[in-house]
Each structure stands twice: as C-alpha cells, then as structure tokens.
C-alpha cells in the first residue's frame, strides 16, 4: 500500500473510528444493566424508631439486604470506646467520628465484617464489641477493628436523626 495519505486511508480510519465508537456505545447498556436496578435503589433508605432498643441491647435490622447493627451502649462501653488512643488503631477513627453528637449511646454500623463479608457476632472477643467467627476479626465497642485480618472498621452508614428517637438510614 502506498505511504501517501489518500482518500482510501481516510475511509479506513473513518470506518474504524465509527466502528470503535459504535462498540463503545453498545457497551453502555450491556455493562450498565448489571448496576442496581431502580427497585433495588428504591429500598435503599429506611426509617427506624430507636425507642425500640433498650440499654445494653443490640438490634439487627435489614438494610440494603445487609444486617444493620443498632447498639444502645452502656456508659462504661462509651467510655472504653472514647479512651482508646487512636494512634494504636489500624483504621484510626475517634469514637466521636462514629456516632452523632448528643446521641453517643447509639452506635449504628453495617454488620458486615470488612474482611470478607461475614456477619460478626455481638458480645464476643476481647474488646467488648464483635467477633467475626469466620477468620477471627475482633471489633471494639465503637465497631473499630482491633484484631484479625479485616482492614477497616465496621462501616457507619449515612444516617440522620429525624426526631430525638427516629433515624433515617441511607
């Protein structure tokens, strides 16, 4: 083929670019359909009445197909969580960053171990929080990772207090 640019080269390049563009456009619906559907997203936020939880209790509610731990902490547990030197933590966060000011007694976390997604058990492990039975990750009373393979603290979801006892999650 000649090295001179000519009209045939232009046709090749234009056709190639057009085909590439068409393939990319086709990929959008093919890949996009895998994303959460509208009905899944519609159930993405819930409201919950915290007066159902008593001191020292953990309630598990289902949110986005995952367990959500709603924990009414005792004053002793709150103090333990606040007294930790955060420099010693793997995923450094203060207790204040994980609860809402004025509502320190309520710890709300997604009950999914940040290692491989198991559901940790409440009231086990050395730090008074949760123990994941699968691979031995231990969380403290603030849901922070203290031992085991999990890399991150239990996730605190986005939530707001609608009233003094009612929250909206998501």
């Amino acid at each position, binding site marked *: 083929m000649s090295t001179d640019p000519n009209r045939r080269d232009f046709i090749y390049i234009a056709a190639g670019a057009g085909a590439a563009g068409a393939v990319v456009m086709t990929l959008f619906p093919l890949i996009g359909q895998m994303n959460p*559907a509208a009905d*899944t997203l519609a159930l993405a936020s819930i409201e919950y009445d915290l007066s159902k939880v008593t001191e020292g209790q953990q309630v598990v509610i289902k949110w*986005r197909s995952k367990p959500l731990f709603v924990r009414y902490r005792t004053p002793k547990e709150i103090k333990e969580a606040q007294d930790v030197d955060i420099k010693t933590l793997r995923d450094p966060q203060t207790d204040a960053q994980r609860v809402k000011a004025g509502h320190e007694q309520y710890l709300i976390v997604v009950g999914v171990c940040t*290692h491989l*997604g*198991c*559901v940790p058990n409440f009231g086990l492990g050395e730090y008074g929080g949760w123990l994941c039975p699968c691979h031995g990750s231990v969380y403290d009373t603030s849901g922070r990772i203290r031992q085991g393979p999990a*890399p991150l603290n239990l996730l605190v979801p986005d939530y707001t207090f609608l009233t003094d006892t009612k929250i909206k999650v998501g």
Partner: protein
Amino acid sequence: MSEHTSNYVPKSGIEKWLDSRLPIVRLAYDSFVDYPTPKNLNYWWTFGGILSVCLVIQIVTGVIMAMHYTANSALAFDSVERIMRDVPYGDILRYVHANGASMFFFAVYIHMFRGLYYGSYKAPREVLWLLGCIIYFLMIATAFMGYVLPWGQMSYYGAVVITNLIGAIPVVGPSILTWLQGGFAVDNPTLTRFFSLHYLLPFVIAGVVVLHIWALHVVGQNNPTGVEIKSKEDTLPFTPYATVKDGFGIVIFLILFAVFVFFAPEALGHTDNYIQANPLQTPAHIVPEWYMLPFYAILRAVPDKLAGVIAMFSSIGLIFALPWLDTSKVKSMRYRPVMRWFFFLFVVTCIGLGWCGAQEPADVVFRMGTDNLGQATGISVTVVSRLLAAYYFLFFIFIMPWIGLKEEPLPVPASISEAVLAAHAKKKG
C-alpha cells in the same frame, strides 16, 4: 503428528456424497479411529476421555434440572427441595449433578498432575496447556456459580465471601462489587445472573475443549517417556486400542461415581446448605467445596486482605506460566531423579493445603503444650498453611527453573518403541 494424512475412504453412496460437501465423517475418522496414539500410554492418560464424559453428564443433568429450578431468591431453595422430593428421579439427577462436579474436579486434578509429571506442558504443547488452564479456570467459575444456586446458607456465604474478594481492589473495588452483585449485597439480582452464567459457561467450556483436542491432535499426544513420536512403530491406531482402554477407565470411574451417588450422596457436601440462606446470620465456619480448599487455605494464610487475594489468584495464575518456568530439556520426570521428589512433595503440599482449608485457622495441628486456661498451644493451622503455601510458590518460581538447569537427567530412550521393547525384555527376565 501434524503430518498425519487422512486414510478415510468413504464407502457408501451417502458417505461419498457428504464427504465432498461437509467432510465431518472424515474428521471424526481421522481424529478418533485412525488417529495414531503413542503405544506406551498408561492409565493416567485415560482421564482425558473421563473428563469428556464428565462434561457431557454435567450438561445433560444440568439442562434437565434447569427445567425444574427457579432462579429467584424467594423460591430457589424450595424449588431445589421440590426437585429432591416431588420431581420423578429429581433426587438422582441432582445428586448426579452435584457429585458430578466433584468427580469432574477429581478427574481434572489427576489430569493436571499427570501433565505436570510427564512434562505435557513443554514445547510444542504450550498452547494445549494454556487452553487446558482456561478450561480449568472456567470450571472453577462455573462450579462456584452453580454452588450458589440452591440458596442455602453455605451457598449464600460462599457467594458473599468470593464476591467480596473484588472489594479488596483499591479505590474502585467497592463500586465494582456493587456492579457485580447488582445491589448492595448478594441478593436476587446476583442469583439470577449467576444462574444465567452457570447455564452459559459449560457450553463455553465445551468450545474450549474442542480447541484443546484440536491443539492435541496437531502436536500429537505426549507419553510416559516424554519422547516425541518418531516412526510408525511408536504408534497404534486410536480405535480399537485407545478406545477400549479409555472405555475400561471410564467404566471404573463410573463405578466410583455411582458409589458416591447411591451410597454417600451428601459425603462431599455441607450440611449447612440445607438451611435456607439468611443474610443476617453467618454460619460458624464458612468453607468452600473440597476442590477449592487449597486456594482458600492460601487466601487465609496471608494476614492482609488484598495480599491474600493476590496470593490466591497468582497461585492459579502460575499454572498458566508453567511452560516457561520449567527449564529442563527432558520432559518426563521418569528421567528426572531430583525433580520427581520435589514433584511428590508438591502433590503432598496441595493435599495438605486442602486439609488446612477445611480447618478453623486457629486450630492447633501440632500440640506443644497447654496455656494457663488448659487450651492446647502449638503450631496452628494458619502457620501450617503458610509453610505449605510458601512451598507451593517456591516450587513454581524457584525449584522448577533452578532444578531444570542443575539436574543431570537419566539417559532418555531413543524412541518410544525402544523403551517399550526394553521394558518388555526386562519383564521377561
């Protein structure tokens, strides 16, 4: 034997008519009747045929079960129970399908270790080996997605753990995870896409199997001496010699298969899978099916999440690189006195990793005393897994290239027929 020419002579009128239009009978004749096979093949070579039978059994039973199964998270568990109780022969078909997966992996592991021992991955069979690795990888994906479908507790948490591996990817991991699961957790969208892919992938496997056999027939079969075919004296026609030998092997294999299906159908499953999936309650101990346990042990051996995932995937990825890791000039480990010992140690390591994968990580394997609470202390499963995982990687990355350069192989026979005659003379005394 790429130079093998066709000896097919169409006899009847219809064969002659078809042969000049679509020479499919000629292809079958040249591939499975007249095809020259090395005359010294042992029974480790029958697993290729056994695997073809396994694939057919899985596709047939799977297509039938899909007629009764419902891919919906609210109905899946009950539809499987209905197959077990109400569908005529449904229990047999499901047990054949479930145990068939185990048998498939049992056979493929023997097939792979056979290839490893006799150097079947070495030139000119690299592409053949790569295609085999792709089949194995597709088998893992298919088996995993199939295991999720009954929507039991083990199925569900298996899916949770494995899809969460993707979440270990820095930055984009969580978004990819949501995309993959079709929601914020493993749920109905995950189940329906897994069902779709579980139905699709076996046909992809069948396609790659055709390429695998094609590649095999271009370069010719390897054999226990690892010496290439040199003359007609080295070979026998596929039919009746290999056909009958493979047929015998298949029958023995089917007897073993039947023993599991009829007498111990649940032996290889997990009882927790008879509890319906519950996203709010984790089983005490999550374990995959036995054929994934070695990789699970490698995943758990690494204390860091991302590093563990990388270690697990590279342990499978290394198998692909095998043709370029082995530096030896001799194929068969029959003539490699040093390497064969490292090979046997490797087999033991793989079995050991499998055992570790089934145990709890903190369990003590070698007891060395007791702590002040009276609990046993000593070397834990995690430590043993680390040692075994270290050998697994060492074997591929260091031992294989290094021994290949240093080892003095035994004299290799000049041809297959010479080796056969020597063995025959030795037996006669």
